[in-house]
C-alpha cells in the first residue's frame, strides 16, 4: 500500500512536475478552491469541492482548431497542433472522473475528436474519495458514489483520520504516475476513512421515464421564471459539452476557434432569420433536463449528469437540478398512486 502524509500533496505535485507532468490540483483562490495548474509553492486544498470541474483541462473553453496565414487575397492553412501536455490531475472528484467517461462517448460518437482524445490520452486522473459532501451533492442519485472509481486512473483516499492518503493505481497510466511519484510515497498500512455519506435524493430512472412523457408540462414554465439565462451551470458542469465555432482574424492570420456554448443562452438556438425555436427560458431549462436525463440516455445509455452539484452551488438564482428531479420523481410517484 502506497501511503502519503496528508500534508504532502504539494510534494507529490512537485515530484510529478519534475517527472514532466503538468500538474492540475485544487488550489485556493480567494474565497474559492479551484482546479488550476499547480506551480511550486502553491498549497493544495483537497477539502472543498472545487468551483470548476476538471473538464476545462481536457476540453478548453476556447481552443484554436485551425489556423491560416493570409497574404493579399490568398490564404494558406497552417498547422494548429493540439495542445495535449502530459497532465496529472490530483484530487479530481469521482463525479468529475465519471463525467470524463461520459464525454469520451460524445467525443467519439460520429466523429472522433482528436483534440479530446489526445488530451484524454495524456491525462492521468487521480481521483479523491470524497470524505465530505454538502447539501448540493447528489452523485448517489445518478449512479455514482463518493468512492466511485469510474474514469479514474488512480485513487487517493483519506486514511487514519485524515492524517494520511492511500494512493492506489487503477491502470497503466496510474501505475506510471505512481512510479514517477515513488520518491514521495511510502509503503505501509493505513485504515481508510469512511467515504462521505450522500443521500439518494431521487430516482433517476423515474426522471428519465417522466421526461419521455412530459415535453409539455407546467413545471418548465415555473422553472423558466427564476432562471436568469446565463451559462453558469453549463460551464461549471463536468458533462456539458456544447461548443460554438467562431472565426477570428487579423491582417496576417486567421484562426478557427472552438468556444464553449450552452443551451441556457438565448442565442444558442437563435436563427439568423429571427426565429428562435426555444423562445424562452422555460424551453431552455427543459432542454437542459431532457438532454441530461433523457436524450443522452437514449443515445449513450447513461446520464449526462454525475451529481457534482456545481450548477446549484453557482446558480445566481439558486436553482438546483437535483431538486427539479426530485419534484419530478415525487410527482410521478404521486401520480402512480
Amino acid at each position, binding site marked *: 500500500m502506497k501511503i502519503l502524509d496528508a500534508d504532502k500533496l504539494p510534494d507529490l505535485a512537485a515530484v510529478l512536475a519534475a517527472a514532466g507532468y503538468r500538474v492540475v490540483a485544487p488550489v485556493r483562490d480567494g474565497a474559492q478552491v479551484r482546479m488550476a495548474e499547480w506551480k511550486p509553492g502553491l498549497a493544495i486544498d483537497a477539502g472543498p469541492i472545487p468551483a470548476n470541474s476538471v473538464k476545462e483541462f481536457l476540453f478548453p473553453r*476556447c481552443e*484554436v482548431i485551425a489556423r491560416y496565414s493570409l497574404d493579399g487575397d490568398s490564404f494558406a492553412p497552417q498547422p494548429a497542433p493540439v495542445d495535449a501536455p502530459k497532465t496529472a490531475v490530483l484530487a479530481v472528484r469521482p463525479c468529475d472522473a465519471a463525467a470524463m467517461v461520459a464525454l469520451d462517448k460524445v467525443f467519439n460518437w460520429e466523429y472522433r475528436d482528436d483534440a479530446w482524445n489526445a488530451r484524454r490520452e495524456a491525462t492521468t486522473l487521480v481521483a479523491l474519495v470524497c470524505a465530505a459532501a454538502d447539501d448540493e451533492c447528489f452523485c448517489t442519485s445518478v449512479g455514482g458514489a463518493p468512492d466511485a472509481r469510474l474514469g479514474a486512473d488512480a485513487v487517493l483516499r483519506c486514511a487514519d483520520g485524515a492524517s494520511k492518503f492511500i494512493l492506489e493505481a487503477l491502470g497503466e497510466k496510474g501505475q506510471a504516475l505512481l512510479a514517477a511519484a515513488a520518491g514521495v510515497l511510502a509503503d505501509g498500512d493505513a485504515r481508510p476513512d469512511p467515504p462521505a455519506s450522500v443521500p439518494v435524493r431521487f430516482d433517476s430512472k423515474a426522471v428519465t421515464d417522466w421526461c419521455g412523457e412530459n415535453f409539455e408540462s407546467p413545471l418548465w414554465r415555473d422553472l423558466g421564471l427564476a432562471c436568469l439565462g446565463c451559462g453558469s451551470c453549463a460551464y461549471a458542469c463536468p458533462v456539458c459539452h456544447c461548443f460554438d465555432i467562431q472565426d*477570428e482574424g*487579423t491582417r496576417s492570420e486567421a*484562426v478557427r*476557434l472552438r468556444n464553449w456554448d450552452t443551451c441556457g443562452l438565448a442565442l444558442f438556438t437563435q436563427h439568423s432569420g429571427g426565429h428562435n425555436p426555444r423562445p424562452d427560458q422555460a424551453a431552455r431549462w427543459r432542454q437542459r433536463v431532457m438532454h441530461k436525463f433523457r436524450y443522452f440516455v437514449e443515445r449513450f445509455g447513461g446520464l449526462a449528469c454525475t451529481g457534482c452539484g456545481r450548477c446549484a452551488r453557482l446558480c445566481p438564482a439558486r436553482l438546483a437540478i437535483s431538486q427539479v428531479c426530485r419534484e419530478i420523481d415525487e410527482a410521478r410517484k404521486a401520480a402512480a398512486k
Partner: protein
Amino acid sequence: MAQTETKTAEAAAAFQPRIVAFVCNWCTYAGADLAGTSRLRYPPNVRIIKLPCTGRIDPLFILKAFEGGADAVLVSGCHPGDCHYTSGNYHARRRWALFRRLLDLTGIDERRLFFSWVSAAEGQKFADLVADITEKVRAAGPLEPANPARRRL
C-alpha cells in the same frame, strides 16, 4: 552600470512605438493638415483614424487598438465650445474621464492613453503633441508583454 544605461538608452531609441490616434474631422484633423502645410516635423509613429467628431469615438475603438498591439492611443478633438457639432466633444470628455479611470485601474495607465484638444489653427500644437507623446511612450517602453488587452491565441 554605465554600460547598462547606454544599452537601455539605445533600446529606447530603437523602440518605435505604435500609436493610434482618433481625431475629429473639423479640428484636430485640420490641425494636423496645418502642421503639414507649415512643414513642421514630428515622428512618424502615429496613425490617424478620422471620425466626424470626438462624440463618435466609442471606447471600443480604444480597446481594439490596444488589442491589436498599439503602445498608446491618442484621442483628440475640438476645444470645448468649438465643436462643429456644438457638444460632441463635451459628451466625449465625460466618456473619456470615466474610461481612462477604468483602463488605469486595469493596467493601461496615463502613459498609454492621451487626450487633447487641437484646433484647426494649432498645427504647432499637433506637431509638438505627437513629438511629446512619442517620446513619452518611448520612455515608457513597449506595452507588451504587460498589455492586458492584447490578442493572444
